[in-house]
C-alpha cells in the first residue's frame, strides 16, 4: 500500500491509497469516486509519462508520498455541429456577390467611364432589370430596328452579368453595340476613343430601351421606360405683349436643373428649369414675340431623373464649358410645389397617410384634426418631411414587379438612389463616376472596375463648388404608399 497525493485541476487530494497488487485501473476507479471523471477519460502523469491501465506498479516506480497529476474532465466532448457553417470562400461566385453586398464594377475600355457610370446608375433600377429579363429575342416588334434590339439584348446581358459576378466585368459587347447604334460614341481623337457626355449616353440608352421595351401585345401599348422615368409636364405658354395664352403637355425623361447666379439649391434650379422664354411667331401681333413658358408636373414617375445643366457651349472657345457652382441637393426630395393643381389633389391623400405613418413611427399620435386643416398640413409637409428624413429612405422596400400594382400611390416625395458625378473641367474630358445606393442601404462608389463603399453623408457632399466629383445626374426613387 502506497499513499500519494493527486492533483486535479486546482484541487489536491492528499493521501490517496494505491493498492499495488491491483492494476492501475482500480486506482483510476478510486479517482473516479473523488473527481467524477470516468476512468477512460483520466490521464495520470507519472514523471513525464502517462499511467497505462494495465501497467505494473512496480515498473511505474511510484514512491510513497509522490505527487501525481491527473488531467481529465467529465465535460461533454465537443461534437462538430451536424451542419457545418458555410464559408464565403466556398461559395460559388454568384453567391459571394450576395454576401459582398454590392454588384461588380465595370472595366474601363478606354474613356468609357461615361458609359460605365450610366450603366451602373440604371442597373440600380430593379424594375428596369425585370423588364429586361422579360424581353426576349422573339418579342422583337416589327417597327424596332436591328441595332436597337441588339442594344437591348446587350444591356440585358450586361445587367445579369453584373449581378452574377464578383470580379469586375468588361462590357465589351455592350460597348460595341452602343457604338453601332450611336456612331457618335465611336468618335476617335488621336487614335483613341473620345470621352463623351454621360447625359447623352443616358438619354440615348433610355430612348432605345423605351422603344424596345414596349409590350406590343397589350392594347394600351404600355411603355415600361415611360412608366418608370417619364415625367408629364403641363405647360402654359403666355405672351405678355399680346396676352395670348395656350397650353400644351409633353413627356420628358428628366427634369433640368438650371444653374444661374441665384441657384443654390436643387429646388431653385428645378423651378428655374420649368420656366423658360421662347420666341415664336405670334398670330395676334403678326410678328415674333417673347412668350413665357411655365411648366408644371402633371404626372410623376417612379424614378425621377434630374440633370444638372452644368455644361454649356462656349462659343468663344468652341467647347463645352462647365459651371462649377455648388448646388446642394437633398437625400429626400419633395416635388409637391412643382406639381400642377390636379396632381396636388391626387397627392394629398397619400401624403397624409405617409405623414401619419411617420408620425406613428416616431411615437406620435396620428393627427385627428387632419381633415379640417388639410391645407396647412400640406404646406408644412416640406419641413416635416425633412425632419423625418433620417433613416427613412431605406424603409421603402424595393418593389419588384409592381408595375401594374395600382394600389401603391406616389406621394411626391423622392429618395436619392443614384448620383452620376463628373470630375474635371469639360464634358468631353475628366472622369465620370456612379454613386449607387444598394438594397442594403449602403452607398457604393463605382469608379469603373473599383467599387468603394461610401458613407451617406459623403454623397450629399458631391454638390460641386470645387474640383471634386460633382453631381451631374441624380436619380430619385419615389416613396410610394399602399392605399
Amino acid at each position, binding site marked *: 500500500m502506497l499513499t500519494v497525493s493527486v492533483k486535479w485541476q486546482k484541487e489536491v487530494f492528499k493521501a490517496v491509497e494505491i493498492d499495488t497488487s491491483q492494476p492501475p485501473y482500480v486506482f483510476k476507479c478510486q479517482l473516479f469516486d473523488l473527481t467524477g471523471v470516468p476512468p477512460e477519460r483520466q490521464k495520470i502523469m507519472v514523471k*513525464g509519462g502517462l499511467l497505462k491501465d494495465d501497467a505494473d506498479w512496480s515498473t511505474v516506480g511510484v514512491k510513497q508520498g509522490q505527487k501525481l*497529476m491527473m488531467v481529465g*474532465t467529465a*465535460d461533454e*466532448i*465537443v461534437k462538430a455541429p451536424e451542419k457545418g*457553417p*458555410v464559408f464565403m470562400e466556398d461559395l460559388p461566385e454568384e453567391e459571394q456577390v450576395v454576401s459582398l453586398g454590392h454588384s461588380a464594377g465595370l472595366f474601363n475600355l478606354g474613356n468609357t467611364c461615361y458609359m460605365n457610370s450610366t450603366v451602373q446608375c440604371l442597373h440600380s433600377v430593379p424594375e428596369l432589370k425585370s423588364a429586361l429579363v422579360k424581353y426576349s429575342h422573339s418579342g422583337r416588334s416589327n417597327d424596332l430596328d436591328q441595332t436597337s434590339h441588339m442594344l437591348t439584348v446587350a444591356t440585358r446581358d450586361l445587367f445579369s452579368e453584373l449581378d452574377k459576378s464578383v470580379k469586375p466585368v468588361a462590357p465589351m459587347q455592350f460597348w460595341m453595340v452602343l457604338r453601332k447604334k450611336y456612331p457618335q460614341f465611336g468618335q476617335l481623337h488621336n487614335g483613341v476613343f473620345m470621352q463623351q457626355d454621360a447625359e447623352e449616353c443616358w438619354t440615348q440608352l433610355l430612348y432605345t430601351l423605351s422603344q424596345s421595351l414596349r409590350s406590343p401585345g397589350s392594347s394600351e401599348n404600355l411603355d415600361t421606360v415611360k412608366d418608370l422615368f417619364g415625367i408629364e409636364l403641363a405647360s402654359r405658354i403666355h405672351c405678355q405683349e399680346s396676352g395670348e395664352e395656350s397650353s400644351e403637355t409633353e413627356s420628358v425623361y428628366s427634369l433640368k436643373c438650371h444653374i444661374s447666379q441665384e441657384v443654390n439649391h436643387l429646388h431653385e434650379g428645378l423651378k428655374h428649369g420649368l420656366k423658360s422664354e421662347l420666341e415664336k411667331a405670334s398670330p395676334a401681333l403678326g410678328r415674333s414675340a417673347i412668350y413665357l413658358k411655365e411648366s408644371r408636373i402633371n404626372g410623376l414617375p417612379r424614378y425621377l431623373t434630374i440633370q444638372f445643366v452644368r455644361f454649356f457651349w462656349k462659343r468663344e472657345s468652341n467647347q463645352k464649358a462647365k459651371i462649377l457652382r455648388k448646388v446642394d441637393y437633398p437625400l429626400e426630395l419633395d416635388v409637391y410645389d412643382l406639381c400642377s393643381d390636379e396632381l396636388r389633389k391626387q397627392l394629398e391623400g397619400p401624403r397624409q397617410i405617409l405623414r401619419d405613418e411617420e408620425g406613428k413611427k416616431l411615437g406620435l399620435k396620428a393627427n385627428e384634426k387632419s381633415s379640417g386643416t388639410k391645407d396647412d398640413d400640406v404646406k408644412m409637409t416640406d419641413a416635416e418631411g425633412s425632419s423625418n428624413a433620417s433613416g427613412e429612405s431605406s424603409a421603402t422596400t424595393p418593389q419588384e414587379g409592381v408595375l401594374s400594382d395600382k394600389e401603391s400611390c406616389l406621394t411626391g416625395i423622392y429618395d436619392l438612389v443614384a448620383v452620376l458625378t463628373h470630375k474635371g473641367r469639360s464634358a468631353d474630358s475628366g472622369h465620370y463616376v456612379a454613386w449607387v445606393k444598394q438594397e442594403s442601404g449602403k452607398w457604393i462608389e463605382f469608379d469603373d472596375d473599383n467599387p468603394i463603399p461610401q458613407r451617406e453623408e459623403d454623397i450629399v457632399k458631391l454638390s460641386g463648388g470645387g474640383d471634386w466629383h460633382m453631381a451631374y445626374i441624380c436619380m430619385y426613387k419615389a416613396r410610394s404608399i399602399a392605399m
Partner: protein
Amino acid sequence: MSDPKSGAGTSQTKAPPKDHKKKDEKKDEDLSEEDLALKQQLELYVERVQDPDPGLQKVALESMRQEIRTSTSSMTSVPKPLKFLRPHYGTLKAFYETMPESDLKKYLADILSVLALTMSAEGERESLKYRLLGSEGDIGLWGHEYVRNLAGEIAQEYMKRQSEEAPIEDLMELVQQIVAFHMKHNAEPEAVDLLMEVEDLDLLVEHVDSTNFRRTCLYLTSAARYLPGPDDMLVLDIAYTIYLKFEEYANALQIALFLDNLQHVRQVFESCDDLLRKKQFCYILARHGIAFELDDEMCAEDSDREFLQDIINNAKLSEGYLTLARDIEVMEPKSPEDIYKAHLLDGRASAGASVDSARQNLAATFVNAFVNAGFGQDKLMTVPPDSSSGGSSGNWLFKNKEHGKTSAAASLGMILLWDVDSGLAQIDKYFHSNDNHVIAGALLGVGIVNCGVNNDCDPALALLSEYIGKEDSSIRIGAIMGLGIAYAGAQNEQIRSSLTPILNDAKAPLDVIAFTAISLGLIYVGSCNEEVAQAIIIALMDRSDSEFGEPLTRLLPLGLGLLYLGKQESVEATAEVSKTFNEKIRKYCDMTLLSCAYAGTGNVLKVQNLLGHCAQHLEKGETHQGPAVLGIAMVAMGEELGLEMSIRSLEHLLQYGEQNIRRAVPLALGLLCISNPKVNVMDTLSRLSHDTDSEVAMAAVISLGLIGSGTNNARIAGMLRNLSSYYYKDASLLFCVRIAQGLVHLGKGLLTLNPYHSDRFLLSPIALAGLVIMLHACLDMKAIILGKYHYVLYFLVLAMQPRMLMTVDENLKPLSVPVRVGQAVDVVGQAGRPKTITGFQTHSTPVLLAAGDRAELATEKYIPLSPILEGHVILKENPDYREDS
C-alpha cells in the same frame, strides 16, 4: 614663493610652439612683472641645475619641483612654470645625459618627465621614459593631467613591448600606481581603460572598494558591449567577481546570465545565504526563462528548495499576471469586434457579413487569442457551453475551417497561458474529438499553456509524446510544435531521442520534418548540441531537389541556426559543413547560421558582412537575402547605437534593394523596434503598408503590429483601423491587418514581446528564438501564414512576458508602494550621483513599464532586493527608516 598665476595676464599664455624664439622676445616685453620674475627665477634654476656643485643642484631641483607642483593642479591652460621651462627642456635633457647616476639624476628625471608632458614630440613617450628613470615617488603629486598622459603613453609602450616581447614588469608597477590613483579620485573609467589596454583587468579587483565598485562595474558592463570577443567576456567576468566580492549577488547573477554561465549562477546561489535574496534570484532566472535545477548545495532545506524551484518554474506567473490585470481593471474579456472598432469607420467597413468568411474568422481567432492571452477568459472559446442554447464555445471552434480549427483549439492554450491546471482541464475535452485538426490544436494548446512553465509531473511531455508518431501529419505537427514551445531551452534528452529519428525518417512528410527541426532547435536553443546539429544536417542533405523549393524547407536551416543562437564562433564548424549543401539552400543556410550565431551581439563586422550580401542584385531568384536582412536586425538589436544605425541602413536597402530585400526590410524593422513604437519607424512602416507590392505591404502591416505589440498605441491602432477599411476587399491583407490589430492589443496591453529585459541588459534566447521563427515564416507570407501553417504565429508566445513591475513583500504577497517611472537615462561614466530617470511620474505598484522606461522606489521605507525594478521585485523593510511626521 608667490603664486605665479595670480595677476598673470591671460592673453599671452597660449603661445604656439613654433618659432617661439621670436615670440619670446616680444613676450618679454608684454610679461607682467611677476611673470618676468618667475621666468628669471626658473632660468636661474636651470642654470643652477647644471652647476657642478651637487648641493646647489639639489636646491635648484627642489625649487623647480616645488614650482611645478604648485601649478599643475588645473590644466585648462599650460601652467606658467612649464611654459617658461620649455625653452630649457633641451638643455636639461642634454645635461641629464651627462649626469652620473645619483638621486639627483632621478630628481631631474622626474622633472623632465613632467616637462615632457607638453614638450615631448608625438610618439616619443619621453614622459614615460623619464618617469621610469625617475624616483618613482607618489604619482599623484604631479597632478591629474600628468597621470592621464602617462596612462596614454603606457598603453602605447605596452603595445610596442608586446610586439617586441620585451619585459613589462616596470610598466606594470607604474600601472598599479596609476590605477590606485584613478580609483581613489573618482576616475574609474580611466582606470578601467588603462587596465584594458594593458590586458590586466584582474588588478582592478584589489583597488575597488565599497564606494566605487558600483561605478566601476557599471562602466565595465557598458564597455563590454563595444569590445571585441573574447575581451568582453573577460571584462564581464571581472565585473562579476567584483559584485560577488561586495555581495551584490543580484547584479552578479545578471552578469552570469549575460555570460550564459550556469557555473557562475550556481556560485551566486552558493555564496548567498539569505533565503529572501535567493527568492529574488529565482524571479530573475524565471524572467530570463532558462531551465535551472537547484540542488542541495544551493539550498539545503528541502521545502525551501521546492519553493524556490517553483518560482524558477514560473508556477506563480499566472497568479502575478492576473493580480496585475485586476489592479489595472482589465479582467473583462474583449471580443475581436472591440479591437476592430468598426463603428469608427462607419460606412467604409464592408457590408454586414451575412456569411462567415473562413479567413476572417481565423483572424478573429488569433485576435481573440492575442488580446485575451493569459486572462483565462474570453468571449469566443471559454464561454461555458450552457450559457446559450447553441453552446457557442463549441460553435466558435467549428466556425473555423479545416486547419483553422487547429489554430482555434490552440487559441485556448493562449487564453489560459501559464495556468497549467485549468488550462489542461479546459483543453482536455478536445482530445476526444474525432476531427484530426481539432486534436492537433489541442496538442499545440497544451504546449502553449506550458510555455515557460515547468511542472514536476511534466504533463506536456506525458500528453504530447504519445502523438508524435501518429499517422496524421497535422496531429504530428501539433504535438511536435507543442513540445518545442513547452520545452524551449529545456534541453530535454527524452524529447531529443524521440524527435531526432523523425528528422531522418525517409517517409516523414516535409512539413513534419520542418517542424521537428524547429522544435529541436527551440529545445536546444543556444546549446550547440552536436547530436541535434548532426541530425538536422543529415535531414538537410537528404532533401531532394524539388523539396528545396518548398516554402517550409526554410525552417530546417533555421532550426540549425537556433542551436547556435548568440554563440558566435561556436557556429564555425557547422557553417563549414553547410558549404557542402545543395546550392539552392547553401547561401540561405549560411545567412541563417551567421545571423543566429551573432544575434544580439551588436557585432559591427557581421552587420557589414550581411549588408554586403544585400547589396548584390541577383537575378536567379535566390532567397538568401531575406534572412540576411533579418540577420542585420538580429545582430544589431543588441545595442542602442547600432540599432539606430541599422534602421538607417535598412532605409537605404529599401531604396536600392531588389524586391526580395524590400519584403524583408519591414520585418527587420519590426524586430529592431519590437514592442517599442518609435515614431520614425512607425512612419516608414505606415508608408510601406501602402506599397504596390502586396508582400511588402503585408510585411509592413504585420510589423506595425510587432512594433506596437502590447502597447495599445493609439496611433498604430488608428493606422491599422484605416488600413482595415483600405484593404477591406483584399482578404490576405485584411488578415494581416487583423493579426496586427491583435498584436497591438496583446494581453490588453499588459504584455511585451521584447526579448530584452533587465534594463535592456539581458536577452532571453527563447524569446528571441520565438520571434525569429515567426519572422522567418513571414518571409514567405503567402505560403505559410496565409497558407495552412498560420499557427506558426503562436511561436510568439515564447516572447510574451508581462511588462510589469510587481512589488511583493517578504511573504511574496503583492505590496503596493509608490514608484517613480520615467525615461531611463544613461549615467555611465558620469560624475556624482546623477538622476537615472527623467520626466517621471509617480505611481503605486503594480505598474506597467513601457520600452525605455525605468522605475525607482519613491519611498525609503523599503529596500528592493533586485537592482533593476522589473518583473517581480521583493521588498525588504528598511531598518533605518524613520517615519517623518
